[in-house]
């Protein structure tokens, strides 16, 4: 099966600019996650979807971050405006159900200058 696909792989932007990340989960996976991972740290959940519903967005900084999962398949994560502290790897993952193994994409490495 095809894995979780994320794009772009790398992104360099200046602070205050907007940026968007895209994720295509494994076909049939209803649960989709966006994580932020800083160097040397574990993933930190930003948002979790069950189909098209955001069921946990408690850790999403809603003043600048937004996400959507139209039709319960692909998802986009947006930051506007970006800040220096947003530099990190943004990982997308999907799973069949909430308690199933997670399948991660290769991530987008964001650098904000």
């Amino acid at each position, binding site marked *: 099966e095809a894995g*979780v696909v994320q794009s772009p792989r790398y992104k360099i932007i200046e602070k205050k600019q907007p940026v968007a990340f895209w994720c295509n989960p494994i076909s049939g996976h209803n649960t989709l996650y966006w994580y932020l991972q800083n160097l040397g740290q574990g993933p930190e959940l930003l948002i979790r979807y069950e189909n098209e519903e955001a069921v*946990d967005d408690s850790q999403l900084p809603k003043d600048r971050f937004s996400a959507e999962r139209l039709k319960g398949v692909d998802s986009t994560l947006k930051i506007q405006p970006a800040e220096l502290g947003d530099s990190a790897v943004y990982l997308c993952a999907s799973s069949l159900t909430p308690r199933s*193994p997670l399948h991660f994409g290769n991530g987008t490495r964001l650098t904000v200058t």
Partner: protein
Amino acid sequence: QQPVQSPQAVILREGEDAVINCSSSKALYSVHWYRQKHGEAPVFLMILLKGGEQKGHDKISASFNEKKQQSSLYLTASQLSYSGTYFCGTETAKDSNYQLIWGAGTKLIIKP
């Protein structure tokens, strides 16, 4: 709430054994283990769903001690391919409050 992984890092010679621990201050309902190689995505190793459960695949196994609120990952006769950072993800609430909280990782370096 973040589980504590120990050790933070370990260096082994090929063929040696390693144990990585994951401890929580809260009751655990399940534990996930993943391995991440540098610049790559985390890859699923195993899930332990109940206390006392033990699982294994090849020479990697894990146990889940519900009473001690901890899980341990055992790597036996380590191979070069085992190098990477190991993360545990812990579920500390059930049903609608489901969340997977990740440890900071244990970096494993295997030398030939």
